């Protein structure tokens, strides 16, 4: 009765809008709701205990849909998947699981249901590890001299062939008076004698015999190429180990180390000593450099003075762009002998700006061009100053590609042609070298495009890695070698006309590479030090570990540093140094006359001395000459430096900033020491 009254009242209230059709709909909803409630009582029944398997074993995973009373519901479909298919595989349609590697895993089983929504359950699986089977010991030299430390590498494997890094072995020596065992698998060869070294765990044992021979070394003559230098200078040590007859012991295992006293009481001595006897000081101070072999030691004392290369840097001029983000820049001498710049824009309307920078203090906008793009990410000008290439991303027709522009008169630029063949995926970066454009395509490869006739460009070659998931960010050509930055694949050196590997633009040939763990390789620039003969390639990382600002307007902060790779031996590149700016991240950079000009996003432009051999932490060594951070209260984001790239040109430093446009600066000249400036 009460229900009827409620219903009647409701019906009266809704009279203008409620009709029989709607009423039937309501009742249908109620009925379906009741049915849904009933269906929710179904579940998938699986094993509540973890299933235990052995490696190589196959097991049929059992699952069935049951009702609230535990009755099996017939005609249900199931599929399965593993959360870690490389360790535990399962056939999705049958639920046949195979154990591949030990560990704890789970399989998900789903029973689809078109009416009531899927049912899902997890099945836990434990794959038992196989018994241990062998221990490998490496690192034992042919000759072990008394007094040295021998670090061992020990690996444990099980019956299935998996390495077991979590297993520790017990290490013993049969003759502790000759060979002592220390933590972290190191042996100390104390005195002449024989010893059996045993490594054992869980009934598995491996032994190696060690024959410690008399250490013939009685003296080490240690010399340093120089005894006084600056922080950042590399002191090269030469250690000659001699026996009692004065003969050199050629295979003497010499260890190098250092101690020191800082000249600054508020700073600790700091530096880097390499295994082959190179030392570099970070802090000015007096350092004792040691060479030891067993109980024989020698040392030299050196003084590392402050590098003292700081110079003032003056802000000279600005070409303001504050209504959109600015991307890259390129400075060149025009055919008329004046100096010009081109800058791109980012996330905007496809505009590129042309500037007269002949007087860096009066940067003036002379022309602009708008192309169908949202981002003109890269801008380059040919060596003869006549042709400019703009890269496009976000074109409205999604064809992207390049725009080729006549800049023989930068005050009146004009489009020669557009080229998007194979470049529809967006061209993130380009380079022009000897009438060829090297253009990235969709972040996967680059094409070499002949522009001898800029009105009719044509693709002549391409370069692409074949590693899984390869990706490319930038390419830079110098003396016929293309240096491409390939994220986790690192830098690739490719001959596109140098001749070193027989490559041409039509037939690029890769001949060297270097990758490193960060996987963030974003830019590369080659550099040869004429004095030392060293050939370096500097690789920059771009990282954003701090995420985005939620409202997109605050200053951004980047991370990532520059890696200095010694490529002097092309077959054995070695990472030797780095340049890092705390709380900032590297972007584009340029090297000229032993000086690095690096844009570091929120860290502005950093000017760094690269002269001499490079080793260790270049920033800590005081190699930074100057820095300048563009802050513009009228910027697109006010006072938010985010420097994109830097380029030296005729004694000035030009740089583009994402939030404020184009800038110029100038280093003050070097003032020689002990020079008095007299005025009349």
């Amino acid at each position: 009765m009460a229900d009827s009254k409620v219903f009647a009242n409701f019906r009266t209230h809704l009279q203008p809008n409620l009709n029989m059709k709607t009423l039937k709909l309501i009742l249908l909803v109620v009925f379906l709701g009741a049915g849904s409630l009933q269906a929710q009582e179904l579940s998938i029944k699986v094993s509540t205990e973890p299933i235990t398997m052995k490696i190589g074993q196959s097991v049929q995973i059992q699952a069935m849909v049951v009702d609230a009373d535990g009755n099996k519901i017939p005609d249900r479909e199931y599929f399965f998947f593993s959360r870690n298919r490389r360790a535990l595989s399962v056939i999705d349609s049958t639920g046949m699981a195979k154990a591949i590697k030990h560990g704890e895993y789970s399989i998900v089983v789903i029973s689809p249901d078109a009416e009531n929504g899927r049912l899902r359950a997890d099945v836990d699986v434990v794959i038992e590890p196989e018994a241990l089977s062998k221990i490998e010991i490496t690192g034992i030299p042919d000759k072990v001299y008394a007094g040295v430390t021998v670090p061992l590498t020990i690996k444990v494997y099980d019956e299935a062939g998996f390495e077991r890094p979590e297993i520790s072995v017990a290490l013993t020596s049969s003759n502790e008076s000759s060979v002592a065992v220390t933590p972290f698998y190191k042996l100390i060869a104390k005195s002449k004698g024989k010893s059996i070294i045993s490594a054992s765990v869980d009934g598995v044992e491996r032994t190696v015999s060690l024959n410690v021979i008399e250490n013939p070394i009685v003296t080490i003559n240690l010399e340093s190429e120089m005894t006084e230098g600056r922080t950042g200078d590399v002191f090269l040590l030469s250690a000659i180990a001699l026996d009692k007859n004065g003969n050199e012991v050629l295979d003497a295992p010499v260890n190098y180390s250092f101690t020191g006293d800082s000249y600054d009481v508020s700073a600790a001595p700091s530096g880097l000593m390499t295994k082959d006897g190179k030392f570099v000081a970070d802090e000015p101070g007096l350092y004792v450099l040691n060479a030891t072999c067993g109980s024989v030691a020698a040392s030299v004392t050196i003084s590392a003075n402050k590098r003292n290369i700081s110079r003032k840097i003056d802000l000279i001029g600005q070409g303001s762009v504050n209504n959109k983000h600015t991307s890259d820049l390129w400075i060149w001498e025009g055919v008329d002998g004046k100096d010009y710049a081109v800058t791109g824009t980012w996330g905007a309307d496809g505009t590129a700006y042309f500037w007269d920078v002949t007087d860096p203090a009066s940067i003036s906008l002379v022309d602009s061009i708008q192309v169908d793009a949202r981002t003109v990410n890269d801008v380059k000008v040919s060596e003869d100053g006549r042709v400019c290439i703009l890269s496009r991303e976000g074109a409205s027709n999604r064809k992207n590609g390049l725009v080729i522009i006549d800049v023989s008169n930068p005050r009146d630029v004009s489009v020669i042609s557009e080229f998007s063949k194979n470049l529809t995926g967006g061209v993130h970066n380009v380079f022009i070298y000897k009438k060829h454009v090297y253009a990235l395509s969709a972040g996967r490869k680059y094409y070499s495009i002949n522009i001898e006739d800029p009105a009719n460009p044509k693709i002549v070659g391409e370069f692409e890695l074949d590693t899984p998931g390869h990706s490319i960010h930038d390419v830079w050509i110098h003396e016929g070698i293309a240096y491409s930055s390939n994220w986790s694949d690192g830098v690739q050196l490719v001959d596109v006309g140098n001749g070193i590997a027989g490559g041409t633009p039509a037939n690029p040939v890769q001949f060297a590479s270097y990758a490193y763990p960060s996987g963030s390789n974003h830019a590369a620039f080659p550099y040869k030090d004429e004095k030392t003969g060293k050939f370096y390639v500097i690789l920059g990382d771009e990282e954003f570990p701090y995420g985005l600002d939620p409202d997109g307007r605050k200053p951004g902060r980047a991370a990532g540093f520059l890696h200095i790779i010694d490529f002097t031996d092309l077959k054995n590149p070695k990472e030797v140094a780095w340049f890092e700016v705390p709380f900032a991240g590297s972007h584009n950079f340029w090297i000229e006359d032993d000086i690095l000009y690096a844009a570091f996003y929120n860290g502005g432009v950093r000017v760094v001395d690269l002269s001499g051999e490079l080793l260790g932490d270049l920033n800590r060594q005081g190699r930074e000459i100057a820095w300048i951070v563009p802050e513009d209260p009228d910027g697109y984001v006010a006072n938010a430096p985010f420097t994109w790239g830097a380029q030296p040109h005729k004694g000035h430093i030009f740089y583009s900033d994402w939030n404020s446009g184009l800038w110029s600066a100038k280093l003050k000249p070097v003032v020689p020491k002990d020079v008095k400036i007299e005025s009349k």
Partner: protein
Amino acid sequence: MRNLLIIVLIGCWHLVVSQNYYIYVTAESEDEVALIKFDGTNATVQETIQIGIWPAEIEGPHGINVSPDGKYWYLSVAHGNPFGTLYKYSTETNEVVDTVMLGLFPASLQVSTATGLLYCVNFNLHGDMVPSTVSVVDPEDMMEIKKIETGVMPHGSRISSDGLFHYSVGMMSGELFEISTSKMKVTRTLNLDEKKEMSMNSGGPMTGMDHSKMGRSKAEKKMYHSTTKPTWAIPHPTNGKVYVAGNGSDEILEIDLEKWEITGRLATGKAPYNVDISPDGRYLVASYKGSGETGVWDLKKGKELGRVKNTRKVTHGVSISSDSKYAFISVEGIGGEPGTMDVIDIKKTTKVAFVDMGKQAGGIIFWKME
């Protein structure tokens, strides 16, 4: 039971008073997603959500959809090093819950009500012309379970209302693919170009480039280009048909699921791109990318009721409200123009509101009414 009835009746009461509609729209060249509210009269951006992790690289949010329970929205982000990413956001906070890497240029996506899994096509728009895939993702753990090979450049995709079949089209291979969501494999393929002339390269229509060696210049090969160029596929909720946008042939194809053949063609405006069907099954709304218009069709009559000129050029996505009243249209714009969302009253076939948002408005999905 009485209480349940009261609750249901109160819910229905709300249906007859004015509603607020909420829609998510991606801004592909701005790396943003806009949450837009339409109150029946005006459309306003309620919130702009920054997406991605690279402030100085456009990552390209493209496809978007909401989970069946309304708790999460999923976003495909096209660009990466080199693979794209699927993001899972909470609709409550609009914050990232989790991510998983997919294939090259992931695009349209949807969660199946029958399996609970998410199916996303890997469009690979700018890559080599080789068969691409549909990624199957467990959205609870945000883990890719499987990649199912389909055609060249799979773009538009939608799942049947019972959640059992996923339909997608290969834009350049000109095919419609039916995937069993539970078996996770292709069950049927239909060549939409039918007897139209095809130009084949030496290896067949699906052959891709050989990249087994580095640094070698490649001679160009002729690739098959579909004349139909299908860009969207959507199954009707009840009539046993799938509708495909023929972007290259200026038509909507009607495919009978039982016969598995094309049984009808609707001549449209230029370059139909995305399609949606009203939940009541009555209307089909298609974006005409080439002419900057939206077409409204009465499927019962098989007739186009009208075309609505969109606010800007490059009409992109369509999503219809759950009450079948409004179609929400994303419009990309050109260059530095903002993107726009238009609101079309379906019955009246007129634009009733619009709102500007981030550049290159693309992926769009109706979320809820309240």
